[in-house]
Structure formats: structure tokens, C-alpha cells
């Protein structure tokens, strides 16, 4: 399987405190890779290093390489990197003053990526991919905040897809949602893997087992084990992995 993202010797510090230690990881193309691990082990920090969100935080320092198709994203234009590598956050954050339509269109608009006439097509296509089109096609001009939380999360996925990224990073995309919405988004993620490389951070080991092809287990800022999901859960190589998946550490 082809590698889409390769992380090499990645270290991250906040002020003087190191939270990611020498992480190496090869994320396969067109597959779902789950990142699991106890709270505070650095999952979000790792994910945010992959689309250069740490650039915004003055006290964050990143060392190491993140290669997208063999090229280090830290040597490219961060704006282009973020368009290619989209991010979906834990809590859905629709832009509150904008309509559903504008929420999906805004990234494309502000990046001057498409003419006005094409916007409608892009919005429809993105909403369809996010499995939201049927529910909102008649209320595109309503405020995005009028949607339910589960719909809002699919809206933020559509917003990210509108930029036609190559990689989707998702940080606990279902942890703020009810079980029905969670199921919808899980199905959606599985459908998206034909076109995208997906990395999902999750607290929920059963979710990782349900949807992912590969799983990385993180502990105290290090990747302890990385393997095919079924293999990792059935046959953990490290003792600490086994302890975690059997619920003996949390």
C-alpha cells in the first residue's frame, strides 16, 4: 500500500515541555488510520502538526519532518498545505453568522479557487459527499446554527471537502454527538476512504475497530505500536498496548 503521509522524527514542545517524542509513522493512502491512546497522550497535538496548526501558537515548537507525497509540508506554503490536508474538529464549529451555503462555500471563495458560477456545484457536491444534501437542499440559506449538532458536524466535513483536499484529519469527530449522528458520521468516513486518506483520532476503541484499517497506539507522546487494526487489537505486541485495549489503563 502506498504511503500518503510519512512522519519522521517528529517532536513537539509547548514552551519547554515536550509532548511528542520522536514519532515516526507512515499513513497509507486511501485508508482510514485511527490514532488511539489515553487522554493527554498527544493525539491532538500530533494531528495538528500534520496541517501546521501549531504555526498559530507562539509557544509551540515543532521539529522533524512531515512528508506529503514525499515533500516536507514544513517547507511548503502553509496555506496550500492546509487546503490539501483538511481538519475536522471535535466540536462542530460552523461559522455562526453564515448560512449553510456560505459555510460550505467560504473556503473556496476566500481562497479564490473557483468562479461564482461553479460555487453552487461545489457546494452541492460537498454536501452530498458529507451525506447532508438531502436534509438541507431546501434550506441552504438558513443559518448554519439552526442545524442539529450532528448535522453541523457533517456541515463542517462538507466545508472541508469543498476544498478538494487529499487528506482528512479528524479529531474525535463523533465524541460530541449522539449515537445516531455518530453512526451516520462513521458510515460517512468509511465511504470517504475511497477518495481520501483519513486519519481519525478517537477515544473510543470500538470505533477504531469498527471503521479503521490501521491503528496507531500512542502513549505519553510516543507511538508505541502501529499495525493493521485487526492485528493490533487481536494481537498486541507491546504489553502497554494490551493493557490499554483491555481497559487496564485509561
Amino acid at each position: 500500500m502506498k504511503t500518503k503521509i510519512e512522519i519522521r522524527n517528529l517532536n513537539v514542545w509547548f514552551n519547554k515541555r515536550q509532548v511528542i517524542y520522536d514519532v515516526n509513522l507512515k499513513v497509507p493512502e486511501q485508508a482510514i488510520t485511527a490514532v488511539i491512546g489515553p487522554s493527554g497522550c498527544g493525539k491532538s497535538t500530533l494531528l495538528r502538526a500534520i496541517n501546521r496548526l501549531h504555526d498559530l501558537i507562539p509557544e509551540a515548537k515543532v521539529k522533524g519532518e512531515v512528508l506529503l507525497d514525499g515533500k516536507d509540508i514544513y517547507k511548503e506554503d502553509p496555506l496550500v498545505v492546509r487546503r490539501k490536508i483538511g481538519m475536522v474538529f471535535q466540536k462542530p464549529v460552523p461559522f455562526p453568522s453564515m448560512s449553510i451555503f456560505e459555510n460550505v462555500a467560504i473556503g473556496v471563495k476566500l481562497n479564490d479557487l473557483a468562479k461564482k458560477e461553479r460555487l453552487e456545484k461545489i457546494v452541492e457536491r460537498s454536501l452530498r459527499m458529507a451525506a447532508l444534501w438531502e436534509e438541507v437542499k431546501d434550506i441552504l440559506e438558513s443559518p448554519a446554527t439552526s442545524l442539529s449538532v450532528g448535522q453541523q458536524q457533517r456541515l463542517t466535513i462538507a466545508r472541508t471537502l469543498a476544498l478538494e483536499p487529499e487528506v482528512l484529519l479528524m479529531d474525535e469527530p463523533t465524541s460530541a454527538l449522539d449515537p445516531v449522528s455518530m453512526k451516520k458520521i462513521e458510515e460517512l468516513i468509511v465511504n470517504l476512504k475511497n477518495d481520501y486518506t483519513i486519519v481519525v483520532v478517537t477515544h473510543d476503541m470500538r470505533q477504531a475497530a469498527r471503521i479503521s484499517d490501521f491503528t496507531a497506539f500512542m502513549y505519553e507522546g510516543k507511538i508505541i505500536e502501529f499495525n493493521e487494526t485487526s492485528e493490533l487489537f487481536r494481537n498486541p505486541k507491546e504489553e502497554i498496548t494490551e493493557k490499554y485495549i483491555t481497559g487496564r489503563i485509561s
Partner: protein
Amino acid sequence: MISLRVKKKVQNTFLFLFAFLSTIIAIIPLFSIIFEVIKNGIEAINLDFFIQLPGPLGESIGGIANAIQGTLILVTLASIIGVPIGVITGIYLYEYGKEKKSTLISFSVDLLYDLPSIVVGIFVYITVVSPMRSFSALAGALALAIVMIPIIAKTTEESLTLVPPTISEAGIALGIPKWKNIVFIVLNSAKNGVLNGIVLAVARITGETAPLIMTCLGSNFWFSGMDKPINSLTLLIWRYAMQPYPSAVKKAWGAAFLLLLVALALNLLVKSGGERK
């Protein structure tokens, strides 16, 4: 047990009465002012009031049309200058306000905010009126713009600060360039607060008198150019209320009534804006 309860109840009733009475005492002067303005103001209102020049002092004909025109021109011009500068300053304070290099700017804004507006008038008198050797509409508008800027800058900064950081982050994660993100995502999310600040600033300068006395003086004629003196509602009230002629005093009451209506309308606008979001 019971006596304790009774004591509590008496205490509560007493406190309530006290609060109620205090409120009444505070409200009475307010309402008596409003009542006086309405009572005396309405008598002054007729068609001529809106379309005629004041005419010679002491005669009971004429209106205050040039003061209405003047206030509209001054407030519009001041807003054209003050709103963009105020909003941009607010954005700057939001983005860099906590850094050392912007201490001077945030300090200046605070100072300007607390500055008595007559000082602004003196400043513009020295820097604009004196060199131009003439009171002028331009000088008046500049003075009002300077009064506006810190109000708008502060409300803009506050509204931006209230936008959750996750929203700004979501915009950045879409690859939107920093400044576009601030303007089209963060400022856009805060637009109700920003608009309210602008309306409040407009309400404030519509009622300003002191900076205008020193900059555009007042006039008995129509607007005749940016470099000429201009009248305003507040200037008219200031001059006419002190005249011995009842007709002049009546015009001043009429103008006060008009200002009251404007203030009321602008406040309602802010209220309804607040409820929208």
C-alpha cells in the same frame, strides 16, 4: 423557627421596598426631563420647523432646517472617517493588543476614550481651524470622528474577543490567509457587536456639542462648503436656549425633541440588533 422565618420575610420586604423607592427616585428626574422635552418640543414642531432657515433672532417664523442638514452632514462625514479607522484599530488591538509593541496604541485608545470631548475640540481648533483661519464643517466632522474612533475601536475589540478561538482556528484550518480570516470569518462572526458599537458611537456624536463649538461654530444659513461654518442641532440648542426671545427658546426645545427621538431610535436599533443574535 417561625420567628426566624418572619424576620427573613420582613427583611426581604424591606429590601424590596428600598430598592423600589431608589429606582423611583432615580427615574423621576429622567422622566421629568423627557416629559419637559416632549411637552415643549412638540409645540415647536410644524412643517416650517423642518424646511425653513431660522431667520432673524426673535422672530417667531422660520425653522431649524439648516441645523438638521448640518447634523446629517457632520455625522455622515464623521462616520465615513471614523468608522473604518475605528474598526481597523479595534482589529489591531484584538490581534496585537497583548504584545508590547502595541502598548502605545492601546494606551492612546484608552486615553482618547476618557478624554473630555472639549479637549478634542481644542485639539482640532489648534491643528485645523487655526491654520485654515476659519471654522469649518470639515473641522467639526474631524472632531466628531476623533470622538467616535475610541468607542468603535473598543467595542470592535471586545466583540472580536468574544468570538470563540475555535472559529478563527477553523478558518485557518481551511487554508484561509490570516487577514482574510480575521475580516471575513472572525469579524463577520462578531458583526452584530461591531454594528452595535457603530450605532452607539453615532448616537454619541449626534449629541456632542463641545467639540463643535470650537470647530464649526454654527451658522444661520445652509451648508455652503466644507471649509465654511456649519450649523448643527446641538449648536442651535446651545445658542438659542440662552436667548431672551421665547421663539428662539421654542426652537431649541424642538431641536432637543428631535435629538431625543434620534437617540431613542438608535437605542432601539441596538436593542433589536442585540436580540437578532
